[in-house]
């Protein structure tokens, strides 16, 4: 008899969520993680004494509130603290502030363009409307449009009905929205170059596309779908770093009797007679279970830890062709004090938020051109923040930690593989860019962790360092994610499932794929559904 009912491979946030739900339903679950620590990319580590780095993902918003409540994550120590606004800095010495206070924000927009201050009202109404449309689908399994199964037909009908109820104008605008570039989308509302550039960032983060590329408008929406305490679109810090999120999920898992093993890299998913039998660890140890769930991306799952013999040719080909491009880098910096940004007035609260460096589409597009040419952006798009201003637990008193997300940074360079020297040069490019806005910045640096897609892949196991476990392009969304015919979390082998961001609805620390996969597994086992479905808050 098997000791376990299910094994989940990879203790990232989706794997943990999936395992927690399975355990909560009463299954004996084991989650295996190759690193000595859990969390995958939702991790906090002390790489410099006294400083906690949120090494990869650094802010939270998209985490489904239903899951937060359902799994009682607050009880296990997860607390998300919203941060106050942010700003986009320009080389001319000006900035565009984004304040949480509506009136102040409006005044700031009006300082740049009166027209845009008004347009922003229309813009946010429209974006919120699209968000409200999409949100119910995050916790639903995508329908297979080629299937005639009652479940798929009813799901398609649900989609059709929702679309139809939008009314003609909204419906068309919505369809157009999915195919537009973020630049075109913003051009429809705004006139100020700075306003447009500042708002377009969300359409680019984690994506191997530029602001003029069709499809980026959707990526913008993807980043607006979250909320903190009901404030749609708000972002915040997980207290203690993003690792607290993984810890809380692990807490929930263990509370329900699930087991967790770190330092246990999986070599292979065992298949016999078309059924999963369990896993073999790299140590050679075999663990049996009738259900195996992979939290790895589609490429790793099918090309690394599965034997091609066990898979249909079509799946192997799809996995080979799966689009997973690395486009982002990350710097984590220990600072001896608070860097000055002389552009801001004294006491300005904006420094607590996310600070961006960009001023127009052209700059962003040129940064993307560099990526296409196989090099990191010479003038990168930077999303930097100092979480220690909101959450002092992450550095010693008076000291600070800075998290810098960088776009664009390729997984493969035109002149060959990444080397430590090139990594340093990349880091220097970013530091120099920041230093043009903060004169004392360089002097404050105590330690820097530079992560290119190469490091993200090596340490976290995300192919090409893609933070979404697969491009968020139309050909890989909804019923196409990860591949057509396999978008309902079931793998091509009986008993094998996928639960990572490589499945619908994709990345961004939502935990939705993990919960959705659990729902399908429980349905296959004939057990009652205990995962949230649809959206309960609107």
């Amino acid at each position, binding site marked *: 008899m098997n000791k376990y009912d299910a094994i989940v491979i990879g203790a990232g946030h989706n794997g943990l969520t999936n395992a927690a739900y399975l355990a909560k339903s009463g299954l004996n679950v084991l989650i295996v993680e190759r690193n000595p620590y859990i969390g995958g990319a939702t991790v906090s580590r002390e790489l410099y004494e006294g400083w906690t780095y949120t090494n990869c993902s650094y802010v939270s918003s998209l985490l489904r509130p239903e899951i937060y409540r359902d799994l009682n994550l607050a009880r296990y120590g997860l607390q998300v603290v919203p941060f106050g606004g942010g700003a986009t800095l320009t080389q001319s010495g000006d900035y565009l502030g984004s304040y949480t206070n509506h009136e102040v924000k409006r005044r700031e927009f009006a300082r740049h363009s009166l027209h845009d201050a008004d347009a922003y009202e229309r813009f946010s109404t429209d974006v919120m409307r699209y968000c409200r449309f999409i949100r119910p689908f995050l916790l639903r399994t995508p329908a297979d*449009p*080629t299937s005639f199964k009652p479940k798929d037909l009813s799901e398609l009908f649900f989609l059709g009905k929702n679309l*139809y109820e*939008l*009314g*003609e*104008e909204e*419906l*068309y605008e919505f*369809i*157009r929205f999915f*195919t*537009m570039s973020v630049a*075109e989308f913003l*051009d*429809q509302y705004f006139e100020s170059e700075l306003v447009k550039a500042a708002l377009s960032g969300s359409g680019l983060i984690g994506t191997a*596309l530029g602001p*003029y*590329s*069709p*499809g980026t408008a959707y990526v913008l929406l993807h980043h607006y779908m979250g909320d903190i305490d009901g404030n749609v679109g708000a972002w915040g810090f997980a207290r203690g770093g993003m690792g607290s999120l993984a810890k809380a999920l692990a807490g929930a898992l263990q509370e329900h009797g699930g087991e967790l093993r770190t330092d246990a890299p999986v070599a292979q998913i065992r298949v016999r007679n078309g059924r999963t039998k369990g896993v073999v660890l790299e140590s050679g140890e075999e663990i049996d279970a009738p259900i195996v769930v992979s939290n790895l991306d589609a490429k790793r799952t099918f090309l690394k830890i599965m034997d091609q013999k066990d898979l249909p040719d079509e799946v192997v080909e799809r996995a080979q*062709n799966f*689009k997973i491009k690395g486009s982002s880098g990350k710097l984590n910096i220990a600072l001896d004090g608070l860097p000055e940004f002389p552009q801001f007035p004294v006491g300005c609260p904006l420094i607590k938020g996310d600070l961006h460096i960009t001023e127009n589409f*052209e700059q962003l*597009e*040129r940064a993307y*051109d560099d990526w*296409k040419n196989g090099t990191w952006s010479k003038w990168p798009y930077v999303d930097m923040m100092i979480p220690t201003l909101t959450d002092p637990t992450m550095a010693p008193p008076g000291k600070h930690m800075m998290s810098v997300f960088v776009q664009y940074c390729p997984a493969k360079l035109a002149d060959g593989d990444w080397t430590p020297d090139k990594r340093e040069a990349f880091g220097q490019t970013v530091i120099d860019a920041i230093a043009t806005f903060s004169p004392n910045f360089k002097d404050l640096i105590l330690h820097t962790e530079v992560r290119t897609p190469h490091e993200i892949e090596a340490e976290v196991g995300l192919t090409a360092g893609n933070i979404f476990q697969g491009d968020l*392009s*139309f*050909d*890989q*969304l909804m*019923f*196409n994610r990860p*591949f*057509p*015919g396999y978008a309902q979390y079931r793998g091509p082998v009986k008993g094998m499932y996928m639960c990572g961001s490589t499945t619908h609805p994709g990345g961004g620390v939502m935990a939705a794929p993990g919960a959705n996969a659990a729902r399908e597994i429980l349905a296959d086992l004939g057990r009652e559904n205990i995962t949230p479905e649809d959206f309960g808050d609107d």
Partner: protein
Amino acid sequence: MTDRYDALIIGAGHNGLVCAAYLAKGGQKVLVLERSEQVGGAAITREFAPGFKVSACAHILHMLQPKIVRELKLKTHGLNLNGPPIETISLAADGNKLTICRYNIEGAEVSDTDKVAYTRFIKRMERHARALAPQLLKTPLRLANAGFGNVIKLAGMGWDIRFGLGKKRMRDFLRIIGMNIHDLLDEVFESEALKGALALDAVLGTAMEPRMPGTVVTYLYRLAGGLKSIPTLPMGGMGSVTVALADAATSFGAEIRTAALVETVLLEGGCAVGVVFAGGEEVRAPTIISNADPKTTFLKLVGARNLEAGLAHRISNLRTSGRAAKLHMALNSLPDFTGLEQDALGNRLVIAPSRKYLEHAFNHSKYGEFSAAPAMEITIPSLADPSLAPAGKHVLSAIVQYAPYDLKGGWDAQKDTFVERVVDVISAYAPDFRDKITTVECLTPVDIEREFGMTGGHWHHGELAIDQMFMMRPTYGTAQYRTPIDGLYLCGAGAHPGGFVMGAAGHNAAQAIIAGDK
């Protein structure tokens, strides 16, 4: 007073003429109004140097719908489609050319694997294109607010795709339509030269480069339009198509008035009731059909103040900036293209050696510059049709990308540099090229706008991208040829299914108008 005409058509471009012919054939009294002296709009043959004639814009006929040729009996009206069929030859500076025929490729540098893959690829793409093709000659559906009939039609369309393609191919279809051509080609081929040449087909005439999502759609669209025809150079140039169309239309009883510049569409009680000419003269009819582009139609002829605000906003937001220029060159003899036999010069010659080349050419246009090394589609129509040039001499016609409409610093100051650039690029493939040129004519998007009245100098009357296609072309609410203004219709390339010399928009508009009359 009864109107003398049932319908007025503004613009005698090929779509206007197709529409006129079908309406006249259906028994309507039609008057076509053309602002210039000659019919044909941009589909004309014009003399650009003494004795040298060339197709003004599009120069290859590969999409003219056979249904239209047949139903309007264009061949009896003088259309000669007996020109030699043409293949695509992708030029290489080292002479190692690549020939792309419909189902096979030839070229020393291409591996056998790629040759096999090409045949499989093109058949797979044609199957997908066949799922799209029936939509080209149909009025797009109107979603929502439009009754049960459309829901049934929509379900029918889904049914067609599902059973026309089958489960496996439908899945493939639904995946690749969201992709970019760059990645799709990587899934299939090894040879970069082949990938470059195929990628050009996806981006020709657009404001896109191969890495942009949506380029597979444009590629399939091109295939869908050309499924039933063999690409050819029309004898007598593109003008022969519109001359035949005009002849067909008048034979059915349509009247054509040239040198008749329509200034406004006459509105009464919110309905279109006639047109007013530049001189102030009015002509009335219950149906007014515009072959002009949507921006010209709605913002100039009708006037933004007569539109509902949302529509005016959507029309002004249409992307209509052209990024292709047209170059015509009179040559005193045939240039010697490296590695190319003289009799191969009658084919479609393309300069798109790699996807990176296209991407870099496009990069400049993003920032308001023209390409440092532009991509091109070249024809030498005088080889098949000697009437286009004096004896022994030749005409070269090239579509050059990218040349943005809104060039930084303006075209007037930079046109000569641009022409030099193009000559340099061609010279890399034909070293003696420069010496053969006697006259050059360059039509930038600005010239195309000025001469043919297309806003932004865009050949398709607006970018053919997925958000401006089908039921969203030119914009929702006007995509069924009917407009919110009673009595006003669209029949040009700005409506579904867009430009090319297809004639489909004119055909569909006529069908919609006839159906509405019943």
